[in-house]
């Protein structure tokens, strides 16, 4: 198949970027989107040009590195997939495909399509953990039975890969889905309960400091989330933040 690629090029965080057009021919339908980008980069290098910089690593949809806004959607038109698992068969022959970086004040562009998502790390550092030291003598793993339903729900929230698609796709660049997924995972499990109040307050504070926008409950994040994380988590965090503030000392 033949496609026309319009890719965002930006030299560095402070430079102005622009869209660059690259016609591509003989693209195989079985290629992943990133393999198509590899082919383009190979061509660019052979022509003596700088290849397009983009983040990627595992290429199996779990590391959360890849981050492309394709044809107006985070991770492209597929549902429950990351860019690396998006295949060219999802596009039509002759289609023009726009590729842009995640756009958010909290995710400054490093170069071309690569952005800095360390804001997410700082949010986790602010409280996204259980304060337990390494010890060979924690209690036995089966000492506290956890209802299967709670464990499954915690797992579903915990599957977040931290890719930032929720922020990229939210019209307000809100990080609520990301933050609430971690808050939910830990507050659903008995191990996370002791620090529940502190955690939500600190994580929301950090989220605000990073310059993310606010949640309008549009639900776009849950649609575009490659792991299908539900916005129920957001409501849970709203509830916990409120009750924690009203009851903590």
């Amino acid at each position, binding site marked *: 198949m033949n496609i026309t690629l319009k890719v965002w090029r930006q030299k560095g965080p402070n430079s102005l970027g622009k869209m660059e057009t690259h016609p591509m021919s003989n693209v195989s339908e079985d290629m992943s989107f990133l393999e198509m980008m590899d082919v383009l980069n190979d061509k660019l290098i052979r022509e003596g040009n700088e290849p397009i910089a983009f983040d990627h690593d595992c290429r199996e949809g779990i590391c959360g590195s890849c981050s492309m806004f394709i044809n107006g959607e985070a991770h492209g038109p597929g549902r429950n997939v990351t860019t690396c698992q998006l295949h060219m068969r999802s596009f039509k022959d002759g289609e023009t495909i726009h590729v842009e970086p995640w756009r958010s004040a909290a995710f400054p562009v490093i170069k071309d399509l690569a952005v800095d998502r360390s804001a997410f790390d700082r949010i986790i550092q602010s409280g996204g953990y259980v304060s337990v030291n390494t010890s060979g003598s924690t209690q036995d793993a089966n000492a506290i039975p956890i209802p299967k339903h709670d464990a499954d729900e915690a797992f579903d929230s915990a599957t977040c890969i931290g890719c930032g698609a929720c922020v990229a796709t939210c019209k307000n660049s809100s990080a609520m889905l990301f933050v609430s997924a971690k808050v939910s995972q830990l507050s659903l499990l008995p191990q996370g309960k002791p620090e529940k109040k502190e955690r939500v307050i600190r994580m*929301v504070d950090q989220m605000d*400091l990073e310059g993310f926008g*606010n949640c309008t*409950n549009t639900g776009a994040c849950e*649609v575009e989330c490659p792991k299908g994380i539900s916005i129920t988590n957001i409501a*849970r965090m*709203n509830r916990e933040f409120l009750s924690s503030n009203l009851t903590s000392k």
Partner: protein
Amino acid sequence: MFQFDIWLVIGVAPCTFTKYRKTMRKTGILKSSLSKKYAMALTGLFLCLFLVGHLLGNLQLFIEGEAGRVAFNEYAKFMTSNPLIKIMSYITYASILFHVIDGFLLTIANKKARPVKYVVEKGSRNSSWASRNMALLGTALLVFIVTHMMNFWWVMHFGDMPVHKGVKDLHTITTHFFNPHENAMAGAATLLYVFAMVSMSIHLHHGFQSAFKSLGLDHPKYNSTVKFMGKAFSLVIPSAFASIPIFLYLTQA
């Protein structure tokens, strides 16, 4: 900070919040993005209640003849004199003001959160138009509220009002407003009111159930009920409101 002052000046922040102001870490609940959402939700839901009350009164415009005129004017008098209602009305004004200012601040923050726009963005693939345009719809409603208050509230309070049976005759003001023989702009006014109610319907369609989510009121057992109530509310209330100017215009044309 500017935002913080607004909260104190307006003073509608639930007073329990202030108690924790000093103990909060970096930002404090008053300035937290989530608190702004709670305020949006609370004021929004309160305004929904107001809409019900306002509608119930206005429906008296459907009563024909002298009886309707008396009933509506009595209602108008009651609404401007009863101390309890007065308090409620101040809360309503404050809520509107707050909802507007808070919404404005949120919108500014949201715009700042994405300084460079996408070249191509397909919001329709993942969210409803209403949810993406609450600010736009809200602005339309604000314009409407201002005109609406100039048309009636201002006249009632400060204007030169006709008197009927000892009370200010708001009924005549209202019916004449939508009467093409009395008011050359009646047609346009009716259209404006209907348009405003369409905006309100869309605003409520998302806003009603979103308010519940913002307050954390979310449970798989009740979510469908909330959603249904939101849909019903956003359809019934605005259409009932809109039917009044249409009725007045058509019956008097």
